[in-house]
């Protein structure tokens, strides 16, 4: 198995008869391994993922997997057979046990051989550490356990392309770390697209990142390049000595013994006593979102990172 060659060209999705442009001419090519998909709420991340999984059809543009565009229903179903998807709004049948739910999903994914299916279900249950509670009905599970059932169903069919939408929302810190580690282990020779608005999740796991804002690609490239977008523009200001000028993007606020330190983004020094510090990925992201970064990119599908 090799990771799929996924090329997205000029993808546009509109809602409400064209009034809302959820995706506005997105073009990119997904590299192998983990790819972070960042963007604020409502940027179009979920819509983008729904198009990739074939759940939603675009108004225009195309998605091609291994050179073949997903224009026909049959082709989309073929690709779905080797795609895994963990949606943001994850629903499960509450009155089935985890084992039953996964068995059902495996059947729907085309794993019809009983012996292979059972072995697979047990394997993924162990992988997400639910083997001991797999006989319990899903309605009794915690949010984290339900998310693990979600990732288990997503990898049942050994997907070449794994798409996970906000998988760590609502998880406690330990669960979140476990989840990140699991996704990183799964990446291997497949493409894992991880959508999140938690920058740290992407920093820790994804060598490549795509940032979507208002339905357009604001950045795509190596994760380190996102940080360099803000290089030279990140400042520390400490109150009460100096208050940050209003309107400057503030990355974080740290209370300390000498005052409160503000980490702000500004192309020029915001105050005489401002201290310039090195930029992180989060700084780069905030700079990009506030239009402070030097330039926005909309690379074509030929740009392949990683």
């Amino acid at each position, binding site marked *: *198995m090799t990771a799929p060659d996924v090329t997205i060209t000029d993808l546009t999705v509109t809602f409400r008869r064209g009034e809302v442009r959820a995706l506005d001419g997105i073009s990119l090519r997904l590299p192998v391994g983990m790819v972070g998909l960042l963007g604020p709420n409502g940027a179009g991340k979920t819509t983008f993922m*729904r198009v990739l*999984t*074939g*759940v*939603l*059809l675009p108004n225009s543009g195309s998605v091609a997997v291994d050179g073949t565009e997903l224009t026909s*229903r*049959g082709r*989309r*179903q*073929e690709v*779905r*057979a*080797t*795609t895994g*998807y963990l*949606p943001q*709004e*994850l*629903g*499960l*049948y*509450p*009155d*089935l046990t985890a084992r*039953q739910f996964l068995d*059902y*999903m495996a*059947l*729907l*994914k*085309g*794993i*019809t051989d009983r012996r*292979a299916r059972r*072995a*697979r279900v047990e*394997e*993924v249950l162990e*992988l997400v550490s639910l083997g001991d509670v797999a006989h319990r009905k899903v309605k009794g599970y915690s949010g984290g356990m339900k998310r693990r059932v979600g990732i288990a*169903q997503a*990898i049942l*069919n*050994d997907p070449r392309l794994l798409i996970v939408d906000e998988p760590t929302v609502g998880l406690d810190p330990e669960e979140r770390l476990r989840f990140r580690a699991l996704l*990183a*282990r*799964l*990446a*291997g*020779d497949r493409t894992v697209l991880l959508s999140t608005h938690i920058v740290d999740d992407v920093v820790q796991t994804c060598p490549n990142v795509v940032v979507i804002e208002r339905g357009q690609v604001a950045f795509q490239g190596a994760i380190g390049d996102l940080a360099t977008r803000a290089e030279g523009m990140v400042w520390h200001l400490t109150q009460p000595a100096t208050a940050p000028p209003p309107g400057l993007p503030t990355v974080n606020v740290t209370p300390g013994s000498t005052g409160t330190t503000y980490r702000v983004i500004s192309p020029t020094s915001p105050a005489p006593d401002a201290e310039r510090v090195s930029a992180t990925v989060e700084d780069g992201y905030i700079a990009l979102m506030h239009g402070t970064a030097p330039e926005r990119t909309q690379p074509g599908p030929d740009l392949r990172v990683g």
Partner: protein
Amino acid sequence: MTTVLQRTTPPTAARGWWAKTVAAARYEYLMQVRRPAVWVVVLGLIALRCASPFPPGFTSSTDLPFLVADWAGNFVMLCPIGVGAVLADRARRESRLELNDLLASTPTGIGPRLWGKAIGAGAATITPVAVAWVGLLGYLTARHGAGVIPVGLAAFAAIVLPGLVFISACSVTVPYLTGPVLYRIGVFGYWIWGNMVGPRFGIPTPAGTPFEAIGEYPAGAWFHGTLFDARQRGITPTGGEAVLSIAFLLLMALATLMITQLVLTRRNPS
């Protein structure tokens, strides 16, 4: 980085339409048959009707086909309303549980899931009727001998089942359009109007015609069962009319499911 899963033969989208339908039916059955409401509502309506079986005195008959047919008539008089009521929330269940995207992302299309739901959830809802019928046959066998069993099975298949299949098919499809609450009101109204309000009330109704769903035609034609609305219309059903009545119900069930599949597929072209 090493892979963490054993590699399997890649599943294919085209494989096993029937296997996927059976799988969906199996799990829909499992989920529906476990619901206490299914048993309480359906058995409650059967018990309500059978507490004072109609017409009076038929239970003392020794004519086995007649006896069994009238018991079947009592079974099917009210319980389809319950069957419709407890099936009505199945249609939009995936949407309510936010499962639509997950299911739509699998290589299985709407067809196997819809047919699986109709077969599985329908069979599960008919299960209490079948269990109660088996119990009744046990009782009648103890009183009248084993000859009741083949007659009883035939009566269940010919009198009780077609109407329930028809109602089940409608109940997993029509609520996509109406929602469950409106559908429940509708199924109650339809059942009373279409099967119990006879021509004596002077309003147009299928009651007493081969297009009713209460099994009067097969009961009358093959089991000498008591006729109600058909008699008021001056009809003594023939075997052919009984076949027509059953075929009508089964074809309507089939048509309902096929039209719904078509509509859902057009609504979700992905």
